[in-house]
């Protein structure tokens, strides 16, 4: 029904916007191996996005591309976190650490969803996110315990993305209605915190002590960044409405 579709949108949009951000790095990474690694993660996320959006679109007779290219800002259900700009590699890794640990906890529970499609997509995605999480962890360790400069930068990156962490763990009416289908975000917070604390401790970093930003648990409101991202992502498709590619 519509509720499941709305939930699938949230999952799909996070993956899509993240992929769009990460795709920028390909040809700009600190080393060739990272062009490939970040490219892989972006590709995986695009794959997840396509599955979730296709499923969501079925409820409204829309294709994945209708949803990706012909919704305005208000129609998106992405979180503030994935909308944050790439910044430097430190900030990108900080964002990756947060999102991949979150997605890992999320998908490892979503595999038990009573919705068979969501469960199946999550099962496939989980294996890939496992790699994403490890990638983010390894880089957090390297940057945290690398040089003074790298420690400073990953710290700044964590501070920069931290205000948007809280939104990921907010329950709302939709979640209540989807008991058994959706994963309850608030339940993910504890394991998330534990994992993050362990990684940061090993990296010689501290959990940022910064205020949460006021966001929107229903994900209808967005950061000021999303508009720019969509303008670029959608420009060509919208110039040719009805075209196929």
């Amino acid at each position, binding site marked *: 029904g519509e509720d499941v579709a709305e939930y699938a949108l949230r999952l799909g949009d996070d993956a*899509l916007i993240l*992929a*769009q951000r990460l*795709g*920028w790095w*390909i*040809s*700009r*990474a*600190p*080393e*060739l*191996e*990272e*062009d*490939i690694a970040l*490219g*892989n993660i*972006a*590709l995986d996320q*695009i*794959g997840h*996005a*396509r599955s979730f*959006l296709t499923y969501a679109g079925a409820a409204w007779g829309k294709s*994945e*591309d209708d949803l*990706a*290219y012909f919704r305005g800002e208000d129609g998106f259900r992405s979180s503030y976190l994935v909308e944050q700009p790439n910044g*430097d*590699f430190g900030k990108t890794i900080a964002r990756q650490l947060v999102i991949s640990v979150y997605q890992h906890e999320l998908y490892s529970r979503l595999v038990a969803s009573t919705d068979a499609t969501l469960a199946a997509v999550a099962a496939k995605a989980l294996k890939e996110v496992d790699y994403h999480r490890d990638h983010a962890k390894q880089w957090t*360790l*390297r*940057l945290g*315990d*690398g*040089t003074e*400069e*790298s420690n400073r*930068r990953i710290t700044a990156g964590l501070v920069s993305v931290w205000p948007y962490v809280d939104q990921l763990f907010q329950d709302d009416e939709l979640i209540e209605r989807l008991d058994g289908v959706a994963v309850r975000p608030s339940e993910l917070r504890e394991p998330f915190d534990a994992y993050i604390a362990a990684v940061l401790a090993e990296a010689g970093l501290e959990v940022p002590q910064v205020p949460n930003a006021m966001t929107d648990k229903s994900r209808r409101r967005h950061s000021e960044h999303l508009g720019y991202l969509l303008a*670029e*992502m959608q*420009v*060509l*498709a919208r110039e*040719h409405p*009805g*075209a*196929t*590619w």
Partner: protein
Amino acid sequence: EAGQAYFDKIIAEDSRIEPADWMPEKYRKTLVRQMSQHAHSEIIGMQPEANWITRAPSLKRKAILMAKVQDEAGHGLYLYSATETLGTPRDVLNQQLLEGKAKYSSIFNYPANSWADMGAIGWLVDGAAIANQVPLCRASYGPYGRAMVRICKEESFHQRQGFEILLELSNGTPAQKQMAQDAVNRFYAPALMMFGPTDTDSPNSQQSMAWNIKRFSNDELRSRFVGMIQEQVKVLGLTLPDDKIRYNEETGMWEHGELDWDEFHEVLAGRGPCNAQRMERRREAHENGAWVREAAAAYAEKKAQKAQVA
């Protein structure tokens, strides 16, 4: 002298030289130059296509394009590894690129202005690359030949994807079809020039052929390519911007209109539309990544020291 004799024998038998084998200094140098140039081309060649990743008009195409650009990074890596077997480390090769001392394929100094260029680059540029590279799978230097086998497989995949992009556009709206034709118009001549100067102007080719690195002359390869694309363009429902294409029964060669070799040399000399931009972007990525590489190195060293202590 034993080395030279063995080398000559291997070449005569059309067999393979391996990294540990003796080889003439010039052979080594030629290979390092050609292979690293090829690697650099893969790396710089990521840029025109990366230019459309964030704007790809469908999620499927976005995924395919990301995968393709990522493959190019992979090809760069194989080729740097293969080149390293000849004794020149990747750092040195990279430094040569950043300092403008090493060349890369001039085709990547043309801009990718439209989405259709993703099609034209795949079909024509990768197509020309494959025509050049398939014979290199039999190159006398083992690691090079083997890298090329792997690369050619992926490239032909990329070429098919480029062809599909153009086909879809050509069968699309009038605006899409025009976009496709415009891209083909712009990439046709530069793609033909990818085979290098005409045989009469290509002094190094003969030695490379004698060493079984190169197997066919520039003009032979170009002719074969023209024959191929003039067939394929019909399937696309597009035209090539060259009314001089014809098959010469006597020579068995495909002929084409004259190419603007002045432009070729201009681009080669650094005066293409995007030479400066491509190099600036590569240097920027390198400089912006310096602190990351330093951190990774420092961390690895700390780890190694701890492991020693333990």
